[in-house]
């Protein structure tokens, strides 16, 4: 990013051959991890905020292949960045985003529903397991709360990252508790 910016500054001055490009140097510049605009991977770790703004669609909506080949002055890229930034900040949810988020929620809830149905209507009606559907329901609610906060544009901006981390931790702890009950009873009891 620094090198691209250096080339850009150099080109803005008219690409003079006698002026050196200020390439990034480890000794002189801080590591770009902390100075660039991106931090961590979405969906894999903590970061899910980028889903608030479809970065790819915002940029490709402003510029295409043919228009990119005809841009000559460098300031047009600045205008392009302004438009994309405005689109990122003010655009509403796109239909693909809504569909994919609902599909993700449906997959998890479908599994939870089937699991609860199996316990309730299955032949194994041991009293101790009557709490399992309730436990599954609690896990579904806890995990869906984090999903809802992330899915809503206002939720993440107002609440920040901490509530979702706490909810995820509580949800994971509850899931581990549920699994421990099921495994303890099922592994040690008879299965004729």
């Amino acid at each position: 990013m620094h090198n691209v910016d250096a080339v850009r500054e150099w080109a803005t001055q008219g690409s003079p051959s006698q002026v050196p490009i200020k390439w990034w140097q480890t000794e002189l510049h801080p590591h770009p991890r902390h100075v660039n605009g991106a931090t961590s991977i979405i969906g894999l770790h903590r970061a899910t905020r980028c889903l608030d703004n479809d970065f790819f669609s915002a940029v490709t909506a402003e510029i295409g292949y043919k228009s990119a080949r005809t841009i000559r002055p460098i300031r047009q890229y600045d205008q392009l960045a302004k438009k994309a930034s405005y689109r990122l900040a003010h655009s509403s949810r796109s239909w693909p985003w809504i569909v994919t988020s609902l599909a993700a929620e449906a997959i998890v809830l479908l599994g939870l529903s089937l699991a609860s149905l199996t316990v309730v209507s299955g032949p194994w009606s041991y009293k101790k397991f009557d709490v399992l559907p309730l436990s599954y329901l609690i896990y579904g609610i806890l995990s869906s709360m984090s999903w809802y906060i992330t899915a809503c544009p206002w939720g993440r901006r107002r609440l920040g990252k901490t509530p979702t981390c706490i909810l995820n931790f509580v949800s994971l702890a509850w899931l581990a508790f549920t699994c421990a009950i099921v495994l303890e009873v099922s592994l040690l009891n008879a299965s004729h």
Partner: protein
Amino acid sequence: MIIAGYENEPFAHMIPIDKLVSDICSTVPGASLGGISLPHNLSIEGTAAAKKHWPPCEQEGNARNVGHDDEVDKESQGSVSQKSTDEASTAQNPRHYRLRRLSVLAGIGAVIVLATIVKLGAPEWRNSRNAKVGHLQQSIATEHLGGRGSLIAASTSPSANYASPSPTPNGSMVTLNQLLASRLLFPASLSLDPKNPQARSRRGGWLEFSDETHSMASSQQISPGSRVRRLVLGGAESFSNIFNHTFDSYLYYGPVSGVSYMSELRPWKDPSDNYHCPAICGNHYAIDFNTTSTSLSVIATWLFPLAILLSLPFETMPGKTLRSTVSAIISWFGSPQTALMALFFNSYTLIQAQRLVDKEEPNQAWADALYVLSCFNQLELDTKEEQRRDMLTTMSYGLFRPLGAMDVEECPDMELTRQLLYGLASQMRFLRRRGIIPVIFSLGGFFLAFGLSLSLAFSDLGDEHQPATMLSLGLLFAWVPILVVFSVVHREPVSSERSAYVPPDRIPELDPIRVG
């Protein structure tokens, strides 16, 4: 050709940086002659000072290996020693390998512990117990009834002759008492409701008596079972319609799931005989343990598939291995729908990028720009508007300037940005596993085996004694395979540690370009 300071990197030999630099020097005079001085500590051949700056975030982590690095530097003068340096450094810095090794060892340990727990009492104890039970059953049948059929016949017709086929010294009533008591030493669930004599509790256990019986038994400090047994069978008392002649019709003879001695015919002859219970069942008679084959089947079905979780793209930041791994696990399993949402949408973005590339004429710069853009789409942008705009300004210039159709002499920066974009896209492609289709096919084979295992495990699900809880647990985790497959398609790093560097951090890998 190894880039300066990258001798320890596994992909160092794949970076055509000399070609990159020479291309820039040959095509962009302004760049190569722009007064750019080669830093004293940076060269194509590599120096110790240059190497200390890579990877930037590993400086702390590598502090322990400074001595080793110095040795490596001395050896890196020749090509042969360079190869040995790569091998040595790869063996010294595999944090992710260490983590995976620890995970595998922990998993194996957990499996061994579970197998030990589940196997308690089996199989020798179970075999010996079954042999004893079978022997006692046979002795009862031959000595008193001549088989279970006679027992059932006697129990279903109270007015019939209760005498045993083989005479006993105590007469027929004594034999009946013995027979009934043999089933009552550990009485099954017995309902005293005359309207529903076969009703029983699923809990198993002791007789269910009326409040009157309980109070009577508790006042005399005796167990309800023995009290009722003695009074009813002796003919001294009756409860409702239950007396010594009808007592047998209230008994439940079926198996009781989970309690081993109730899953078979109770074979004791004498109610006062307290010897056979511990002798036959031991101290674990209350639980019917799984057999070895059942335990192994459960483990193979439910625990080994968890190994697929290791296929998830864990990305460990140097020096933050444990924290980043725990954070990833919390995010994935704490809210799987959120992770799936991000994966689905980013996969859709990748498809969109491919469509845009196919839509236009073949152009490497266009493909590189969209590829880098789609990768940046997987990153979390800074929330500050100013930083975000600055990033977009630089990015739009760096991604789309190389697409310009102008002359190189007219726009020399176009070729420079093209080389930068090419280098960045190449670096990002190196870090991702290619051949997604074979990977998915291999996962498909795994899921096929997993499905067969599931169907075998629940082939007798209709049986009332088959617990459905494990099936419900499997359904609870139905989203895990989807998460793994989409993670493979979406982002499958070849190295969890190197992939921890997000693209903005990988840009310094193009640092040697400044030597031009």
